């Protein structure tokens, strides 16, 4: 059964008008119940001096007025700074300076590119010429080599032709054999360490 259904004004327990407030600091949390020693405790607020209270309210009113005015002033200052940083004289000047700087840098960059391009073209031409020269030199060397080779081969052929005159053929065979037999050769010779022949 819910307690609210049985509740009647006369049956409600009478409570003191001021409720026991739990202190903000201390070992008890907000869910801990008050102690048994504090059951009948009735807190009385401190006495208020009406003159002092009036003076205090006036002071608070003035204080809050001044603080509010300061807040408004600071807020307008912040807004003004924001506005000026975005759309101000200084901002425009800075933007113009930045644009001019950018244009200068782009022009300088283009000039640099042009200069380097020209240098590069000159260098490439030079390199091409060098390459041509080297290739021509190589070709000359090769032609020289081939010519030397051809000459060597020609000389060899001529020498062989010369030697071929003293070859032994089927026709010369009989005559060369008779000639060899008619001319005896002596092999009685020695050779020293220095390479001199000794006949004895």
């Amino acid at each position, binding site marked *: 059964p819910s307690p609210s259904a049985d509740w009647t004004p006369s049956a409600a327990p009478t409570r003191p008008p001021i409720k026991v407030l739990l202190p903000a600091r201390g070992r008890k949390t907000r869910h801990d119940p008050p102690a048994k020693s504090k059951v009948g405790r009735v807190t009385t607020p401190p006495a208020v001096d009406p003159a*002092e209270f009036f*003076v*205090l309210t006036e*002071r*608070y009113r*003035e*204080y809050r007025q*001044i*603080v509010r005015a*300061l*807040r408004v002033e*600071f*807020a*307008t*200052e*912040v*807004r003004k700074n924001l506005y000026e940083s975005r759309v101000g004289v200084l901002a425009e000047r800075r933007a113009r300076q930045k644009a001019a700087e950018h244009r200068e840098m782009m022009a300088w960059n283009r000039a640099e590119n042009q200069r380097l391009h020209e240098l590069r073209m000159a260098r490439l031409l030079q390199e091409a010429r060098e390459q041509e020269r080297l290739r021509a030199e190589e070709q000359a060397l090769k032609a020289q080599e081939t010519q030397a080779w051809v000459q060597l081969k020609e000389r060899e052929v001529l020498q062989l032709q010369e030697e071929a005159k003293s070859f032994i053929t089927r026709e010369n065979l009989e005559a060369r054999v008779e000639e060899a037999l008619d001319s005896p050769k002596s092999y009685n010779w020695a050779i020293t360490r220095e390479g001199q022949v000794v006949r004895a």
Partner: protein
Amino acid sequence: ATFLCKVYYGGNLTIRLTLGGCANRPFYRIVAAHSKFARDGRFVEQLGCYDPLPNSHGEKIVGLNLERIRYWIGCGAHLSKPVERLLGLAGFFPLHPMMITNAERLRRKRAREALLASQKTDTEATETEAS
């Protein structure tokens, strides 16, 4: 939201004191932070410091970055009571009414005590004269 970039509902930007330091040696930093974050937790910007213990010359040092405080108040930051008191003492804000009231009450109490002490000495003097 990532681990440190939590998003809270409600709450506002507040300029308040964050406690640091060691045991029996507090040290406060004046900090702009969301009001729902922990006292010593994530903050937006540090705007100053306050040393509650007096130094060897008997001074309590307070550092305030007034430019940034102006900016954050202009962005709509709330202030906690100790920060308001410090700014009032610094002269940036008007003096807090409770500070003036407490000073007056203290002065009145001291005057009352002095009066009581003088009255007591007067009565003692008259008693010694009578005896």
